[in-house]
């Protein structure tokens, strides 16, 4: 059974979304294993639902939202430090950076 604090948006996904803020030291059950949360994780962040190898696609909503840049263990936080965008924008917002400090539409 999934941990009630984690939501999988589609059964094909390899990440969960935290649906409440997790505190450092919280214990989660992921893929049958107990995982301790190393640092505070806010609602909306992703955790690996299983082991994900470097280069593997990260699936959320059943679609790739980027790729792992290194091996990711079950229950590990999945974010900027271990995944990247596969999308090469036609018009980069800021050269060399995925992120820009632009105004967020909506």
């Amino acid at each position: 059974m999934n941990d009630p604090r984690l939501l999988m948006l589609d059964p094909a996904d390899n990440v969960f979304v935290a649906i409440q803020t997790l505190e450092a030291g919280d214990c989660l059950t992921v893929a049958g294993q107990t995982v301790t949360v190393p640092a505070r994780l806010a609602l909306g962040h992703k955790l690996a639902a299983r082991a994900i190898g470097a280069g593997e696609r990260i699936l959320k909503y059943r679609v790739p939202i980027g790729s792992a840049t290194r091996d990711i263990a079950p229950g590990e936080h999945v974010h900027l430090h271990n995944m990247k965008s596969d999308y090469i924008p036609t018009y980069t917002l800021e050269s060399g950076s995925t992120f820009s400090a632009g105004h967020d539409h909506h």
Partner: protein
Amino acid sequence: MIITDQAFLRADGRKGIRNHIVVAYLVECAHHVAREIVYPRREHGVQLIGFGGCYPNDYAARMMRTLCTHPNVGGVLLLSLGCESFNRNSLREAIAASGRPVETLVIQQNGGTRQTIARGRQLLAAMLAQVATVPRATLHVSEFSVGTVCGGSDATSGITANPGIGRAFDRLVAQNAACIFEETGELIGCEDIMTARAATPELAEILRASVTKAARYYTVLGHGSFAPGNAEGGLTTMEEKSMGAYAKSGASRISGLLKPGDLPPRGGLYLLDVVPDGEVRFGFPNINDNAEIAELIACGSHVILFSTGRGSVVGSAISPVIKVCANPETFRRMTDDMDVDAGRILERRASLEEVGREIFDLTLAVARGGITKSEALGHQEFVLTYKSFEPIGPSCLPHA
């Protein structure tokens, strides 16, 4: 499936779920007079729309024409100052050709503010009596149209309300309703996934081009689409952020691409391209959520599904807006404004499937006359600005 046998049957054969009269000002100079005419009747189905510009614009003229002949509209009173550029005669003719009652008042020819307001209120009383006798008819789900928009999004929008709306859209499309999603600027990064759902290869290229156009437009305007706050909210990549908005579209095949004022030729899922064609002119494509809502309504939407996390309060003229609240804390704080508590998913009080089912059921209930929260609170926001579009080509609607 028959939704209701109490739909309002217009002379042009279209069927509405509301029986509004719109009072439409054709330049800002006629706005006050129009508003004063509406005011005593604003809780009795009389609504205010209009275009503020004095200079002609084909897009605005088309929007006004399609909005004034929307199936939820039973009659129209046009308010002109008299010297503006808006072609009031061709608008009146288009409305009259649809069989709807229409009157025009020109303030400069009616003795000014006071006399025009008095005359307008008289005309309105007569039109209300006339519109009240409109025949009723059965509305089949294949004659029903729903649009979706998001605004005031937060980290919860993409995991509760948006996929919940997507589930409702899938149910509606499966029953052959016309469902419309939009905001190509928030589909950047979804091109491959989205084009794989296109009904034809030609349509796939058109969908891709619409997103490329949006990316270019926003770049020219210096309008980035990924802010630091997005990463704090747990979003890592642009395609992930876009997926949150894209999730509103569900998983159905995409049947076509529309531009503002185009009507879906039949049931199915459609992308509305809201970003103007050609060189960047007239400023931001959509200055706020209501600009997008007006365009969804101009494409025939009977009902709008509005996803919000931080808590938008808006409704709209012409078509009811259902507020799907993504964040359970926002829902508790703003319960009076919210129709659906999609944030229950976060608190394990409901599944995505259950929320999708609730949105679907509520959409049909609103089509049967159920009043949304924004309607009950009197929200009738409307905005229309300058834009320019090229007409869509035949490949945009391959099964028309």
